[in-house]
Structures are given as structure tokens and as C-alpha cells.
């Protein structure tokens, strides 16, 4: 019965991904991709990964979907009717068909080889879950995923925040786009009222997720994603203007989480390895880092959407 459910979910995943890539209408493709993201969140829940399911629903489906729809609105002004676009399929001449066929064949062969390799893999010699369980007591938190993220493999997370900052700096470097800005029609008063009602609750939930991360699924990533979603909602309700150029305070907020993380890592270098916390202080240090990360991740993820969101056309 469980395998039937998983099988149906896998079929739905493959179908939505296929339609997102092959659907001739670009707007439908983007919506199907958001559906694909939500189905991925279900798949993560089925794989006993509630942390990823939360992040996928908020970031993979929510924020990516908002970004894609925004880009779509700029590509196709007056989004009522789908604008004609270059065809999804290459032109249907003989050479084009042969090219499509050979690429499909190579991709199919690659999939078959990888699938064969999956079944041939020997059993792992290192049991990572057991090692994590054995060291949980010294990690400073009770939730294994948080322990891995911020203690056992904290340097992954440190570098990841750096990657996020670099992506945001890349956006800033590009500057306002020359494309058509999305038409800012008058905001729906219902949306405004809803945003005023929801955003305080979202900020409260983000605080809860941050605190809960030490003991159960949750943490800085999910809390930051929720804060970013609140900012996007405020922007869509026209209660929060787009960021033309971040001021000094905003820059400090964007980089603050990374700087706190880096500062803790530098202060602990005397321990012998990168991000080796003394067990007695581990819990407090992780909470400090996570609190900084929540604010910074929320601002960075919101910035991916809000920077130049209302940019004027440049001559």
C-alpha cells in the first residue's frame, strides 16, 4: 500500500516535470513547475525528511515560483493571453528530428546506466546515521539535521551562506534590468488586509521555527524562508517598496549572519579544527549563529525577489 502511494507520487513527479519542460505554453510550464516543487515537498515528507519538505515547499515551490512568475510577467507583458514564443521543440525538419532523437537516446542510455549502478552499489561501509547518533550528546542540540548542519558539517553551511551572498552581489552588479517592469496595478484591498493580518503571524512562526530547530524539524533555513515569503507578500500587497539600492543598515543585515558565523569560526580556530565547538557552549553558539542566519537568510532570499523588482525601463 505504501509502495503504491510512493509509486503514484513518483509518476506524478515525472509527469509534472515532463509537462513543465514540454508544454508549448510558457505560462503553463511555469505553473506546472510550481506543481512539481510541491510534489517534491510531498516526496521529501515520504522520505522521512520533514526539514527538506519545509524548505522545498517554502523555497523550491514558493520563492522559486514567485521569481519565475515575475520573470514571466516581464517576458510577456499583459499576461492575459499567452504571447507567441519560440517553439519548445526544434523545427520539425529531418536534421532537427535526428538531433532530438539522438539527444533523447543518449539521455535514456545515461538514465539506464545510472539506474543499473544504483542496484549494483555495495552496502555502505560507514554508517553515518549511527555516527551522528553517537555524537549527538556533544553537539549542543537534539535534532540530528540541525546538528549536522551547524556542528558536524558547519563549514558546508558557512560556505553556503557565502554562496548566497555572492549570488546577491551578482544581482547588485547586474543592476536594474532593461526589461519592461511588471505593470503595478492598484493593489487589491483584500490582499492588503490579508497581508497586514498574516505577516505578524509569519514573523511569529519564523521565531518558533528558529527556536524549534534545536529539538525538532525547523531551523534557520526554514525560518529565513518564511521571513522572505512575508517580505514578498508585503511587496505584492504594495506595502513594501522594491529595493533600488540597499542602504548601509540593509547591507549590514544582509551580511550580518555570515559575519557572525565567520566570527564564531575564527574565534574557535584555537580548538584545532574549523567550527569545533566546546560541548558546553555548543548549544548557545549554535543558537547565536542560527539567529543571525535567520535574519540574513530572510533578507537575502527576499532580496533575490525585491532587488529591482520595480525597476524602471532604462534607456
Amino acid at each position, binding site marked *: 500500500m505504501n509502495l503504491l502511494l510512493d509509486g503514484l507520487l513518483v509518476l506524478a513527479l515525472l509527469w509534472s516535470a515532463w509537462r513543465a519542460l514540454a508544454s508549448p505554453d510558457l505560462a503553463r510550464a511555469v505553473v506546472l513547475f510550481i506543481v512539481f516543487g510541491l510534489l517534491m515537498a510531498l516526496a521529501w515528507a515520504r*522520505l522521512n525528511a520533514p526539514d527538506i519538505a519545509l524548505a522545498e515547499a517554502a523555497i*523550491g515551490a514558493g520563492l522559486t515560483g514567485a521569481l519565475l512568475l515575475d520573470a514571466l510577467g516581464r517576458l510577456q507583458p499583459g499576461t492575459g493571453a499567452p504571447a507567441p514564443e519560440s517553439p*519548445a521543440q526544434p523545427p520539425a525538419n529531418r536534421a532537427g528530428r535526428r538531433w532530438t532523437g539522438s539527444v533523447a537516446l543518449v539521455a535514456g542510455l*545515461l*538514465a539506464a546506466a545510472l539506474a543499473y549502478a*544504483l542496484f549494483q552499489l555495495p552496502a555502505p561501509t560507514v554508517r553515518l546515521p549511527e555516527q551522528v547518533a553517537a555524537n549527538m550528546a556533544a553537539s549542543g542540540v537534539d535534532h540530528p539535521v540541525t546538528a549536522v*548542519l551547524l556542528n558536524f558539517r558547519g563549514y558546508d553551511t558557512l560556505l553556503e551562506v557565502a554562496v548566497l551572498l555572492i549570488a546577491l552581489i551578482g544581482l547588485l552588479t547586474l543592476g536594474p534590468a532593461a526589461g519592461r517592469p511588471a505593470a503595478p496595478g492598484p493593489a487589491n484591498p483584500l490582499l492588503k488586509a490579508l497581508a497586514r493580518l498574516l505577516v505578524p503571524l509569519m514573523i511569529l512562526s519564523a521565531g518558533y521555527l528558529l527556536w524549534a530547530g534545536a529539538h525538532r524539524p525547523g531551523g534557520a533555513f526554514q525560518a529565513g524562508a518564511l521571513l522572505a515569503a512575508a517580505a514578498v507578500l508585503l511587496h505584492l500587497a504594495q506595502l513594501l517598496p522594491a529595493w533600488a539600492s540597499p542602504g548601509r543598515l540593509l547591507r549590514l543585515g544582509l551580511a550580518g549572519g555570515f559575519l557572525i558565523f565567520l566570527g564564531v569560526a575564527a574565534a574557535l580556530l584555537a580548538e584545532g579544527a574549523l567550527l569545533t565547538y566546546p560541548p558546553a557552549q555548543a548549544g548557545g553558539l549554535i543558537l547565536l549563529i542560527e539567529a543571525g542566519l535567520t535574519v540574513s537568510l530572510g533578507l537575502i*532570499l527576499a532580496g533575490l525577489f525585491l532587488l529591482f523588482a520595480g525597476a524602471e525601463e532604462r534607456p
Partner: protein
Amino acid sequence: MSAGLLYALAGVLLFALGLGGIVLLRHALRRILAFNVMGSGAFLVLVGLAQRDGGADPVPQAMVLTGIVVAVAATALALALLRRLPEDRP
């Protein structure tokens, strides 16, 4: 077949689908979609394969959590670059 292995297989198929999409699709926005499908496939392989014997493995889960956040940053940068492309080449 365990659920983990099933999802890893689905991840392999998604990866191949996304790869074919990146090569075959013309529209840049669709290529960004294909790149994201490829990434989701890799994530499913990573977690599914580690959990093929059942039971949650927090190490690949934490890595995929990191990966999802990096993927959205890459997508946002790609979309910003897409906007800067000249009009006749969407």
C-alpha cells in the same frame, strides 16, 4: 524495492529528463526550469540512495537542505541574467 531506492530511481529519470531539456530546449526560461529539474533529481538520488535500507539519514538531508537554498540563489541570478539578454533573444 524500498521506498528510498524508488525515489533514487525517480531522481535518475528526472536528472536525465533535465539534461535532455537543457540540450534540446530553445527558450532560456525553459532551460532554467530544466536545470532545476536536474538539481531536484540529484537531490532525490542523494537522499534516496542513503536511505535505501529504510531509516532517516541526517547527513545527506542536511546537504540537500543546503543545496535547495543554493539552487534558488542560482535560479535568481540566472533569471536576472535572462532579463539582461537582448529583446530578440528571450
